[in-house]
């Protein structure tokens, strides 16, 4: 009797067909059966991504967000994606008024209380506590002739806001799937029902004994408000068109170009934002509610490339946006993923963003001058630069599970786009920087 160990593999590759034929045959037998198990465990062929994120601005808003997304791929490559997001927001955000050498008092939007802002501080409204729930569903499926079709819907609700959206997208692969052209349409309807109602634009905020009461809401409760209202709620409609080209350059490189056009129509004001009206000495005389145009059209151009090096991936993108409010913005975003041993990776991230101000942006109004048709002191419509630096660490946990940690620092520098600061305003910082930290833990299984 002899025991024979097989020799090392022969260098005979033309007889290897059996192995690959057998692999194909086995795939059919054991692969499809794997999906039969879905009958016993309905979640077995779902893939889940979950994340917890904390965003915290120094002295301002803090937000916590939980995301759970599930993806199921069906037999014919149809993909169903469901996602639920919960956000909780606390803290204070700038109400648009300018800082003063004295204490300022504001009425809360519901008219029920006052809040005071210390001298020489940027006025922040700290009465906001909000929770938002979002849910979305997306269905994607291949069609004949290399077409892929996708349709989806989303829903978002917070106490004063409701958003409903629907979208559809069609893509076609050419050139052995090295080129993909896509076109998409998205529609959204948003309704805002601010606390205390919709202010009559550019009318003053009311104080203490001026607060209006005596109207009644749907449940018969008494409405109070810190403003002259013109409605309980208002809404806006958004149409987005998206055109894309994705091109595989070679085995290592892929590029993508998108153009999108977006048109929004309706109530575009931030119902809580104010403008200070100052006198020649820079002292605030009153606060007016802002007013923005009733429509906005945006064009955005986006280019992205991903390059696979031997042990790393560079993901670089640039976006240019321009709109008929004359905001122009540039975004540069770089991710560099470096693979460490055993599928662990570390990914530094840097992002730079700059925008010019909307043509109706002004940090305050001056007494005696003509009240413009449109005005807003919302710093988000002003000149600003922001940058983000961060790092992410990801690690596999086996059996297709993985975990990742992300830590980022965000810095925002609003800038003066040429407004002089008369009198006491010269001493005030109207363009206060914002620093924020973002921490996220994500888990996929």
């Amino acid at each position, binding site marked *: *009797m*002899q*025991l*024979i*160990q*097989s*020799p090392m*593999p*022969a260098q*005979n590759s033309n*007889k*290897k067909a*059996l*192995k690959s*034929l*057998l*692999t*194909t*045959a*086995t795939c*059919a*037998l*054991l692969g*499809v*059966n*794997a999906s*039969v*198990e879905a009958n016993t*465990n309905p979640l*077995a062929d779902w893939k889940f991504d979950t994340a917890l994120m904390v965003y915290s601005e120094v002295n301002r808003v803090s937000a916590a967000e939980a995301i759970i997304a599930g993806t199921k791929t069906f037999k014919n490559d149809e993909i169903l994606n469901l996602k639920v997001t919960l956000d909780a927001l606390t803290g204070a955000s700038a109400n648009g008024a300018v800082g003063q050498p004295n204490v300022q008092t504001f009425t809360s939007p519901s008219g029920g209380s006052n809040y005071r802002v210390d001298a020489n501080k940027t006025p922040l409204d700290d009465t906001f506590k909000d929770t938002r729930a979002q849910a979305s569903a997306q269905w994607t499926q291949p069609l004949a002739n290399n077409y892929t079709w996708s349709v989806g819907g989303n829903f978002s609700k917070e106490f004063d806001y409701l958003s409903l959206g629907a979208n559809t997208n069609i893509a076609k692969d050419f050139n052995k799937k090295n080129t993909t052209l896509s076109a998409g349409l998205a529609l959204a309807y948003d309704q805002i029902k601010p606390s205390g109602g919709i202010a009559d634009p550019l009318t003053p905020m009311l104080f203490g004994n001026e607060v209006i009461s005596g109207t009644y809401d749907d449940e018969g409760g008494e409405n109070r408000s810190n403003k002259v209202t013109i409605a309980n709620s208002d809404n806006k409609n958004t149409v987005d068109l998206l055109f894309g080209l994705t091109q595989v350059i070679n085995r290592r490189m892929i590029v993508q170009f998108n153009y999108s056009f977006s048109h929004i129509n309706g109530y575009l004001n931030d119902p809580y934002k104010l403008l200070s009206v100052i006198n020649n000495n820079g002292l605030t005389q009153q606060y007016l509610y802002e007013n923005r145009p009733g429509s906005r059209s945006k064009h955005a151009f986006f280019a992205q490339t991903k390059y696979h090096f031997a042990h790393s991936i560079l993901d670089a993108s640039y976006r240019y946006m321009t709109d008929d409010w004359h905001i122009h913005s540039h975004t540069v975003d770089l991710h560099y993923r470096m693979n460490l041993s055993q599928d662990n990776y570390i990914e530094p991230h840097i992002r730079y963003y700059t925008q010019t101000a909307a043509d109706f942006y002004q940090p305050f109004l001056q007494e005696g001058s003509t009240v413009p048709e449109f005005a807003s002191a919302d710093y988000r419509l002003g000149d600003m630069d922001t940058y983000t630096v961060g790092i992410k660490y990801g690690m596999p946990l*086996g*059996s297709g599970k993985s975990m990742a940690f992300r830590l980022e620092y965000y810095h925002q520098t609003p800038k003066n786009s040429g407004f002089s600061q008369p009198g006491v305003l010269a001493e005030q910082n109207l363009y206060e920087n914002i620093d924020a930290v973002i921490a996220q833990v994500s888990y996929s299984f």
Partner: protein
Amino acid sequence: MTLSKKAERKVICQPRESGFLLSFYAMASPCEVLVDTKDKRLAQKLAEMAATEAWRIEDKYSRYQQNSVCGQLNLRAGECCSIDSETYLLLKFANDCFQMSDGLFDITSGVLRKAWHFDGSDTIPSQTQIDQLLPLIGWQKTQLSEQSFLMQKGMEIDFGGLGKEYAVDRALQLINNQTDVPVLINFGGDLAVNKERMVNGKAQAWQVGIDHPSFYDKTVIVEMTAGAVATSGDANRFLLKDGQRYSHILNVKTGWPVENPPSAITVAAPQCIQAGFLATLALLQGENAEQFLTDQEIKHWAIRE
């Protein structure tokens, strides 16, 4: 009879240094599941899943059980029988094996057992006996669709060369859906592991001794980190007449034993059912069994007497 059979269906759990050894009896073989965990309940749960799957496949595809799918297909040979998707996939795999082996691997060859009794005696069937059976053999005479299977009256199929290996793969799949602890499954010498084990914080291959029932003095030691091995051959099954040895490996085209195959051959492959098919196909090459696998760059261990 049924009651005593049910009573045998239990899983015995024994602790071992690195975890637990769980054993049960299925498909006429002793079966083992080795789970490297300190969690006894997990080990028991996984072994229960493996055993339940083995018993399910045994009940569904045993040719010895008249009520099994296999038993019914044989009983109703000549009729067009409706089949479920799992049965279709197994028969489709058998069809692929038939094609890949140029007709040598044929699950309809079992009827030759009516002529050949490999009991160590010198009873060789006559050519007439064999000629009577040959028309009942031939996968190409069957018709398979996703919903139905039809073979000629008198034909038989059996999953003897695939069923146990399929059970190993299925059981390991089920276990992998539940856990990522290292597990080894051994159903009567056909085995598979899901990953390397951790010993003192270091990854280590599973050391598997493959006993050949007929060679008590020889154990093939195989090191496995992932994948499967299966063994074909049984040296006790032969006939000896006029100094000539007849192996139990039959060529379905002639109905006669293959000349000079290894006594047993163990083959490694990613999936157990692949290893099982390759081991059987290698034996069918007779003298050239080892060369056949070497040419295909397939790792194997052969025993010759």
